[in-house]
């Protein structure tokens, strides 16, 4: 968290700001598994710029097809099941970006990810952002914002997570937080900056780098 609160310049080819931060954490030449990889923007960037060997998992056929047509290795399937087939420490990094809030069994999934990857990167929308707190307080209704744009009855985001919640979760799971960054994004998440003051209130997303704990 030594990085200053200044606007980050956008690396070529990566639109989403949280992915720019994640990409900056990946060591060149590493093996990466990207869960819920969408159209493969992050994998493509990492392959082109960091010589990364990447695999993506995505359940939507149209997105999978786009990824493979781009020359990426991507499997169509459910992340909860697909992660079970790999051997221990197959990957240097397993990335779960903006998907945790949609996972039914986060404990089980995190355990699987820490088995197949040396390190796990998790990003999620921070539910304790001031705008969300204010909406609940003032309107008394389920909050909506750019990061969580759905109604309560049609949202795929079934888990409500805050930065504090996630820190506690990692402690309970006995794993180590190696790096943690809170970001505030705007312009459809294409621009943003790192937040170091009043993170819990001001961050739209949290990004965590997690390693295996001492005890398994």
């Amino acid at each position, binding site marked *: 968290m030594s990085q200053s609160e200044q606007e980050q310049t956008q690396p070529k080819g990566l639109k989403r700001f949280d992915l720019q931060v994640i990409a900056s954490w990946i060591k060149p030449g590493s093996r990466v598994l990207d869960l819920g990889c969408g159209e493969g923007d992050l994998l493509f960037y990492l392959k082109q710029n960091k010589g990364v*060997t990447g*695999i993506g998992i995505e359940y939507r*056929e149209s997105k*999978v*097809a786009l*990824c*493979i*047509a*781009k*020359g*990426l*290795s*991507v*499997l*169509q*399937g459910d992340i909860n099941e*697909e992660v079970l*087939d*790999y*051997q221990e420490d*197959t990957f240097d990094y397993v990335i779960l970006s903006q998907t945790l809030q949609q996972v039914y069994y986060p404990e089980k999934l995190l355990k699987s990810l820490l088995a197949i990857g040396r390190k796990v990167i998790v990003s999620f929308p921070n539910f304790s952002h001031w705008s969300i707190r204010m909406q609940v307080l003032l309107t008394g209704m389920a909050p909506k914002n750019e990061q969580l744009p759905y109604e309560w009855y049609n949202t795929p985001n079934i888990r409500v997570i805050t930065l504090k919640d996630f820190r506690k979760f990692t402690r309970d799971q006995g794993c180590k937080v190696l790096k943690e960054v809170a970001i505030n994004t705007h312009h459809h998440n294409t621009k943003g900056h790192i937040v170091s003051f009043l993170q819990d209130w001001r961050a739209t997303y949290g990004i965590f780098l997690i390693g295996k704990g001492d005890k398994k």
Partner: protein
Amino acid sequence: MSEYIEHDIGGVSVGMVEKKYFTFAEPPNPMILESSACLGPITIAYETLGTLNKEKSNVILILHALSGDSHVAGYYSEADPKPGWWDIMVGPGKGIDTEKYFVICSNIIGSCMGSTGPSSINPASGNPYGFDFPVVTIGDMVKAQKALLDHLGINKILSVIGGSIGGMQVLEWVVRYPDMVVSAIPLATTTRHSALAIAFNEVARQAIMADPNWNKGKYYGSSKPNLGLALARMVGHVTYLSDEAMRRKFGRRLQNKSDFSFNFDADFQVESYLRYQGQKFVERFDANSFLYITKAADYFDLRRQHGNGSEAEAFAKAQARFLVISFTSDWLYPTYQSRAMVKAMKKNNLDVSFCEIEAEWGHDAFLLPNQRLSALIRGFLGRNFDELN
């Protein structure tokens, strides 16, 4: 499969191609088959398209399905009414670009399309083999194809591609000759037939063998078991389509009539279609070849042959990068079978991509124009070509 062959809508074609032959395993060196029987000499029909580059790094081997042949794309002559069976996929600028790649399509042994099979002359007797032809396996077919590639001086294949029984050959290639294969695309296929698939094949075989003209395989030079073979083809066609495809294609529509005939003529369009396909098939296919090739497909079991019963162990020797593709409405080789092979590949740390393409046309979807399929294959091949060169 031939009923789908059409001229490319865009009019793009690789142009004129030539059917070529290669003969090997001449006496006294026959090929020893998996059954321990000997076969020789063996002729293989094949076709090549595009140009082999100097580094010999642009070779694509295409393997055909049950009733296919070496004529994958283009035309034999100006007067040809139809191009090769995968003309929509193979040609200049197409999914498999003949401007970029050197494409080889090899016929299988056991076939009646130019390669040695039951309708070929048995040198021992001077008559067609008939049922004296030894039972061949998918492994035997691949061994013969390897002899062809050796003859052509090729020791690295950029990609081995095939659907259905062609896909079985793809899987056999990657485990039998792992050093040669850079990448592989098994389409709409399986590492082993389900009981359902074997059952339909057996019904088809019984239809042929119950035809009095079949005469234990000795019918060359006399009346052929056309009724049995046509019936076998009709059964096959049902398995290649899907409920959705048949509803769309035929529904309950009647054929050239407004009411039932109240006899056993072909009232429904689907009846008429199946009869027509059956009759057309007997003109170009040999009943004994049908028996031998379906048997080879039923025997194919990658786990048993290469993995001591384990799918994961079967792929232990493989080194290729994979693109596995299945189709949503394919109930002959359902997606769960593709997923099982993907799982086994992952367990071996192999680089594998998998996509289940949404298509309503059943098992035959891989032969039909599909932009998504073309884009997937083009992207996958392009990447492998770039990384090899």
